């Protein structure tokens, strides 16, 4: 009921600003049939066009005479009797091509995945440093976490791209993934630290009393239990990461957001494209969310 009222309200609102919906323009940006032009290898005259299934056979008799040359096309652009020069286009074939929205979606997914993976590794190491007995490691971890959490991601991306990227001559993709990984790493570190500290001391004591070293205790006893406990906040962090990855469009990485912006400049279907882009983000995050929920239930077996 509420949704219905919302939909009607939206419809009236767009009516008032005289917006013309053109949803039919959207699908071509996912995938489209591209025209591939077919050229004639010789100069001469078109002697015959014979339909053959869905394509046409064009026969061209060379200027000086001799064996006619055939070119097969799906759509002929010449007529019988036309004179053609060498490398002239005589027709086109059609081919399915991936559209910019699909490409952008793919870039968003892999950038999020790679930076999430690196971020998790950074977070694990930093989280362990954060609770280490060594004051230098602990201090460095705290400085890193505070630096990242205290500055906006957008500014970090700019610094990473324009300063670090220029100094080290980094590719924009590397800079973008690096900035995202460092960003998510700082938040993950705190989540992992809290998870480790939430495991009862008795677990460590039991493991140590069996003769396990501190490292073995961490790997076999503490981390598996901590990981299970921090899965819900980690899931939230990674869903955030997918959405935050839209910010890398400012350094000209053609992710989903930037593809959307580019399409709007050519199609003028502003509302439709932004709605589609939002829907695609929602799709990706929903799939991830379900995946992590499934993982959580699997881990809950031992409860």
């Amino acid at each position, binding site marked *: 009921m509420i949704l219905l009222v919302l939909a009607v309200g939206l419809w009236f609102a767009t009516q008032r600003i005289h917006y013309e919906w053109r949803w039919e323009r959207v699908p071509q940006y996912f995938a489209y049939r591209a025209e591939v032009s077919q050229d004639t290898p010789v100069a001469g005259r078109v002697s015959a066009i014979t339909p053959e299934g869905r394509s046409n056979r064009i026969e061209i008799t060379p200027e000086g005479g001799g064996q006619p040359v055939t070119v097969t096309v799906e759509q002929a652009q010449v007529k019988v009797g036309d004179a053609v020069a060498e490398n002239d286009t005589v027709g086109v074939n059609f081919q399915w091509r991936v559209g910019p929205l699909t490409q952008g979606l793919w870039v968003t997914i892999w950038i999020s995945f790679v930076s999430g993976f690196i971020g998790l590794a950074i977070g694990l190491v930093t989280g362990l440093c954060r609770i280490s007995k060594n004051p230098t490691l602990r201090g460095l971890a705290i400085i890193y976490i505070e630096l990242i959490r205290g500055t906006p991601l957008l500014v970090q991306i700019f610094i990473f791209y324009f300063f670090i990227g220029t100094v080290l001559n980094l590719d924009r993709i590397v800079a973008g993934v690096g900035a995202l990984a460092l960003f998510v790493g700082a938040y993950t570190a705190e989540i992992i630290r809290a998870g480790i500290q939430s495991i009862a001391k008795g677990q460590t*004591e*039991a493991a140590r*009393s069996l003769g396990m070293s501190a490292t073995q205790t961490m790997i076999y006893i503490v981390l598996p239990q901590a990981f299970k406990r921090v899965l819900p906040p980690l899931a939230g962090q990674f869903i955030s990461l997918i959405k935050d990855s839209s910010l890398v469009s400012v350094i000209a990485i053609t992710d989903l957001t930037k593809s959307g912006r580019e399409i709007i400049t050519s199609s003028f279907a502003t509302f439709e494209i932004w709605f589609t882009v939002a829907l695609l983000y929602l799709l990706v995050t929903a799939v991830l969310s379900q995946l992590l929920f499934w993982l959580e239930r699997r881990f809950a077996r031992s409860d």
Partner: protein
Amino acid sequence: MIEVKNLIKTFEGRGQVVRAVDDVSTQVAKGEVVVIIGPSGSGKSTFLRCLNGLEEFNDGQVIIDGIDLTESKTNLNAVRREVGMVFQHFNLFPHKTVLENVTLAQRVVRQRKPAEANERAMKLLTKVGIAEKANEYPSRLSGGQQQRVAIARALAMDPKVMLFDEPTSALDPEMVGEVLDVMKQLAREGMTMAVVTHEMGFAREVADRVMFMDAGRILEDAPPARFFTAPKEPRAQAFLKQVL
């Protein structure tokens, strides 16, 4: 087997220093069962935890089977695998099945092959009477069953000494018996044991020596027959009057 010389452990809290273990010296011979009793806060658990280095002590010496814990070149992990410990709250690993709880340390510390570790584990689980639960998770077991698994887990390392830190205090009364039975069996088989407990019946029946601790000191150290009938210290007399 265990030799303790002038052991001191202090805790600092809110500006005052508490001597939890105050200049304790004693020894436990091979195959001996020593029961440590005393009021809460008397330092008996802390004393026991010093014996495998779980608690770092401030001064004194602990020598287990000829190895001095305080010496800097001593590998604490190597000593600990010879000293089994059973805790008040079991401390089983909740993310591992009963069988995995018993095999994990065998594999990563003793480097036993999975088949060998499994065989040893099943033998011990049968001994403590819980083999049919091998593939359950600890959360599905009762307290008494969990504690028996914990004993099997410690025994799987083939320790020379077993330390019990109030093993029955967190159990329902009806489950105390099953755990004590396992401990009695161990004692009969000649295991060297140090047991902190409030079970006077167990002390009387199984112990070779009973130590009474108060305020971090061992006040009385006698065979159970003498300790329970004719304690010398007035503090021990008062304690026994309360609990018996």
